[in-house]
């Protein structure tokens, strides 16, 4: 049963990703992006990463998609709802990327990845918390500086007047 839902989920993610890059209307791309984020969150659950799955839902789906929709609303004086964005030299890009995909897949199959047998799925929040506050303390503090800077930078740019 889990096998079938996994393949459905993978198909769902890739299909919505294809819609994101090929759809004519920006709004459809944004909604398809939302679905691909949901699909990726499902993949995290299959990879026993429950906390990261929830974080993905909270931040990507709950925050970034909202911002992207805001961006679309604010920047298109939407007289015609059909905001088509023609793509350029699609065939060359598609050809080149299938070659790259082939190269990546041969790499994935051929390489001896770092594999260690894993026990069974456990709660990851605790080990993430410990690791965050001990092993990766410095990145944790640098992220707060990054967020502060992003907040100030984006607020100054988006603010009119004063």
């Amino acid at each position, binding site marked *: 049963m889990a096998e079938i839902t996994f393949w459905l989920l993978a198909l769902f993610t890739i299909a919505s990703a294809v819609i994101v890059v090929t759809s004519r209307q920006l709004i459809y791309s944004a909604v398809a992006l939302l679905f691909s984020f949901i699909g990726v969150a499902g993949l995290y659950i299959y990879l026993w990463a429950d906390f990261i799955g929830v974080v993905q839902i909270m*931040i990507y789906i709950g925050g970034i998609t909202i911002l992207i929709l805001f961006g679309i609303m604010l920047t298109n004086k939407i007289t015609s709802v059909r905001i088509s964005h023609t793509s350029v030299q699609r065939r060359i890009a598609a050809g080149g990327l299938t070659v790259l995909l082939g190269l990546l897949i041969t790499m994935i199959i051929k390489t001896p990845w770092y594999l260690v047998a894993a026990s069974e799925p456990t709660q990851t*929040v605790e080990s993430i918390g410990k690791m965050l*506050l001990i092993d990766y303390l410095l990145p944790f503090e640098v992220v707060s500086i990054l967020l*502060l800077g992003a907040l100030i930078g984006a607020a100054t740019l988006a603010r009119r007047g004063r």
Partner: protein
Amino acid sequence: MYLEFGTVLAFTILGIILLMVALWLQKLLAPSNPSKLKQSTYECGEEPEGSAWVQFNIRFYIIALVFLIFDVEVVFLFPWAVVFRELGWLAMVEMGIFLVILLVGLAYVWRKGDLDWVKLNMKNARGRYRRFAEDPNSNKNF
């Protein structure tokens, strides 16, 4: 792990199916003969003009932005909350630094007036209301 999230998945799918069934039934049973008048958007009986996609003010973007940044801050609080009792005071100090830095960000956004939903612009505001005096270089429509 799969069991808990399996139920979550089951519930979402069930919800979607119920919704679809309701809509499908309505489409099946209800009579529908659309006419020009019925298709037009309903604006309390007045004649609708202009498009529904009206342009709205930019300060709502800033508020969404502030929401996102502090949503991210909350995400860091979860693992800390699970673990700080074991790690003792050092974890408290680390989280304290993280929160102070973002608190300064909140003070900045608050003081700069990005958070107030309605921006008052009074022609000649004096005394206590000087803050609301019309600032010269802000263009009115935004």
